[in-house]
């Protein structure tokens, strides 16, 4: 049974293909169109899935869409009914798009498949948005039984759900409904602090440790009525998303000492304090929800998904709290993962196919589910433009790369299949030396062209994780934070300005130690990515450190690279020193046109 799952028309459109329950391919549309968070129907991602799965004309058994368009539209109309005569501007933007595009999903599916010469057997299916999230969290997890928590902005009506999974079935038990949404609350603060909604949430989280929680009480008093069990209602007087085009309104400005920060203007202490305050509230809500989920399901394990499950700080605290014995988080927790969840929902829950988890391994294949390129394909790319490159094979490969990292070089690593989900996990990564005190600002300003406060994440040998972090278990998808071990920490002065704080040497792995002495951790095993593991291992043999910097292979505002051409362009547009294309090593100094900045310029869209 071959099933195609699709998520589209909101943000982060994606497609996923499963065959008899096995995930064959999954990718986000943005990687192909080079438009970050591309919401358009994922024609290219579908095409890739069809090709990767070698799907013939009559081979596709079913297509599942990740939400119910009519139910969602009804929610939008209900919102206007509850705010009119306000809300006109929002309605003028939204209603025409719904009438022209979003209400015609079956036709768009049919049309897309026809263009790809695929004959769909039967009508498309439609999962509910949070069912798709819940399915993406539970079915690929290693657990036979588990509680399921999904938290996001909004689907049709639900904004958070609690459920449980058992074998090949999931049952959703409780829900919180729009407009009372933790995702939207977090996004409101993202907007207010001058970052972009649906993409800047990560920055807000990164900014939080620089601030003090001085608005926490105010948020509790005025914005939210939070109950012991994690459920809440928002005081909608302060928000603009029901009747306007902005997330917050004038009352919100008054409450938080002035208007929203203008994007790209200087970040002040207020934004840092706001970030810290909303982060603290978010962590508390997630923890309370998780405790409630444990109570009502009686389960010892938890599966998490939904956009809020990408908040690795909250996840880390939840992991540390011990509310559950074990947690598994879908690496593509945002709406992209809904494509996979929708397909799995049909395969397991609806069709009743058996599911046999082993309790240890998940079914995500390390999340390396996107396009991969053979060595011959890479050679062809290099030869076509006659780029100077050296082929390295065998054990030399990892050793050479590790040696370059040790010399302080920054390397673009393009190897294997592209990751599904927002994190680069060693296939489309930029890697460097975590011991270097200057590496964080070098990478932020010269390579990624992004805000200097943003921390970098470490990839650490799974077997060595306890040498560096107070952390037990695994974090293969970079979705948990952990505290850097006390004996590695160097005391720093907390009363200095932000810019100086960034450059403080906080530990013996300063480039991956955030100001609060935490790190967003990826553990790498020999099983999930042997080649990436071998690089870190070789680095350990050279330096004694089984840990390197890993940041996504892109510049600010650009989606992670997908093809060798994207990778080469990004390599040339930045001050990266080396590019690894599978077995080929390209040295920047040897590349033609390296000084022609205009040729390699990537249009930077502010994110």
């Amino acid at each position, binding site marked *: 049974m071959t099933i195609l799952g699709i998520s589209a028309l909101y943000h982060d459109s994606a497609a996923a293909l499963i065959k008899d329950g096995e995930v064959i391919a999954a990718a986000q549309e943005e990687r192909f169109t080079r438009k970050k968070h591309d919401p358009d129907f994922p024609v290219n991602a579908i095409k890739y899935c069809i090709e990767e799965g070698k799907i013939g004309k009559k081979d596709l058994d079913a297509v*599942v869409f990740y939400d*119910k*368009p*009519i*139910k969602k539209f*009804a929610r939008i109309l*209900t*919102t*206007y*009914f*509850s*705010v*009119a*005569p306000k*809300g*006109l501007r929002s*309605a*003028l933007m939204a*209603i*025409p798009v719904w009438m022209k595009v979003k209400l015609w*999903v*079956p036709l768009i599916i049919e049309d897309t498949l026809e263009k790809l010469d695929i004959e769909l057997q039967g*009508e498309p*299916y*439609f999962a*509910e948005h*949070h*069912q798709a999230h819940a399915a993406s969290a539970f079915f690929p997890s290693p657990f036979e039984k588990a509680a399921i928590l999904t938290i996001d902005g909004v689907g*049709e*009506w*639900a904004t958070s*759900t*609690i*459920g449980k999974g058992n074998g090949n079935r*999931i*049952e*959703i*038990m*409780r*829900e*919180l*409904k*729009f*407009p*009372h949404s933790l995702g939207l609350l977090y996004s409101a603060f993202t907007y207010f602090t001058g970052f972009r909604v649906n993409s800047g949430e990560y920055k807000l989280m990164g900014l939080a440790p620089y601030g003090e929680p001085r608005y926490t009480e105010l948020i509790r008093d005025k914005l939210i*009525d939070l*109950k*012991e*069990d994690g*459920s*809440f*209602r928002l*005081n*909608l007087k302060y928000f603009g998303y*029901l009747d306007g085009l902005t997330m917050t309104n004038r009352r919100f400005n008054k409450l938080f000492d002035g208007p929203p920060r203008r994007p790209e203007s200087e970040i002040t202490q207020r934004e840092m304090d706001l970030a810290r305050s909303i982060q603290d509230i978010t962590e508390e809500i997630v923890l309370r929800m998780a405790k*409630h989920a444990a109570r009502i399901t009686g389960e010892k394990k938890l599966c998490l998904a939904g956009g809020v499950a990408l908040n690795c700080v909250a996840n880390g605290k939840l992991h540390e709290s011990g509310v559950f014995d074990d947690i598994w988080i879908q690496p593509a927790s945002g709406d992209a993962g809904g494509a996979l969840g929708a397909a799995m*929902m*049909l395969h397991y*829950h*609806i069709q009743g196919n058996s599911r046999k988890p082993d309790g240890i391994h998940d079914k995500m294949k390390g999340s390396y589910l996107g396009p991969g390129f053979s060595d011959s394909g890479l050679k062809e790319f290099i030869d076509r433009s006659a780029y100077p490159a050296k082929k390295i094979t065998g054990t030399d490969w990892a050793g050479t790369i590790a040696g370059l990292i040790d010399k302080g070089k920054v390397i673009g690593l393009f190897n294997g299949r592209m990751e599904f989900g927002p994190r680069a996990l060693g296939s489309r990564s930029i890697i460097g030396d975590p011991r270097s005190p200057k590496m964080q600002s070098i990478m932020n300003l010269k390579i990624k062209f992004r805000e200097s406060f943003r921390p970098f994440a470490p990839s650490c040998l799974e077997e060595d994780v306890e040498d560096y972090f107070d952390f037990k278990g695994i974090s293969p998808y970079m979705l948990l934070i952990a505290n850097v071990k006390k004996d590695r920490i160097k005391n720093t002065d907390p009363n200095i300005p932000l810019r100086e704080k960034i450059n403080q040497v906080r530990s013996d792995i300063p480039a991956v130690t955030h100001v609060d002495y935490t790190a967003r951790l990826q553990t790498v095993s020999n099983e999930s990515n042997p080649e990436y593991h071998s690089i870190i291992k070789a680095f350990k043999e050279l330096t004694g450190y089984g840990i390197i910097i890993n940041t996504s292979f892109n510049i600010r505002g650009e989606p992670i690279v997908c093809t060798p051409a994207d990778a080469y362009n990004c390599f040339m547009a930045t001050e990266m020193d080396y590019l690894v294309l599978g077995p080929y090593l390209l040295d920047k100094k040897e590349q033609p046109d390296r000084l022609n900045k205009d040729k390699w310029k990537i249009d930077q869209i502010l994110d």
Partner: protein
Amino acid sequence: MLDMKSKVKVIIQAIILAGITVFLFFVLKQMVWTIVAGTLCLLFIVTGFFIPKAFKRIEAFQKFLAKIINLLLTWILLTPFYYICFTLGRLIILLANKDPMERRMPPEKTSYWETYEGNTNPDQFTRQF
């Protein structure tokens, strides 16, 4: 040079414009508009066949104009509809003392979790609602 498909497009547009010019001149006897339509017709033929770059610019402008007109028309139609239909709907909701957005925060409530309303029966998966 324009491709064959584009050339056919130029010819069709020129014929339509020529028709309009004739109609304006002979039937409506509108001299000014006849000159406008005739000039446009000529412009299409000249740019279409001899200055393809300029023709592509004109085409892009046409598309942009069509988009704006489409948007304006939608807004003109939707605005009164919104005020009448949605405001009336809101009044009815208010009179019925209902609030679909559940803005109230009753102090006696100990939890806002609701029992999940969706269902996971197989037939529900074929529906868009």
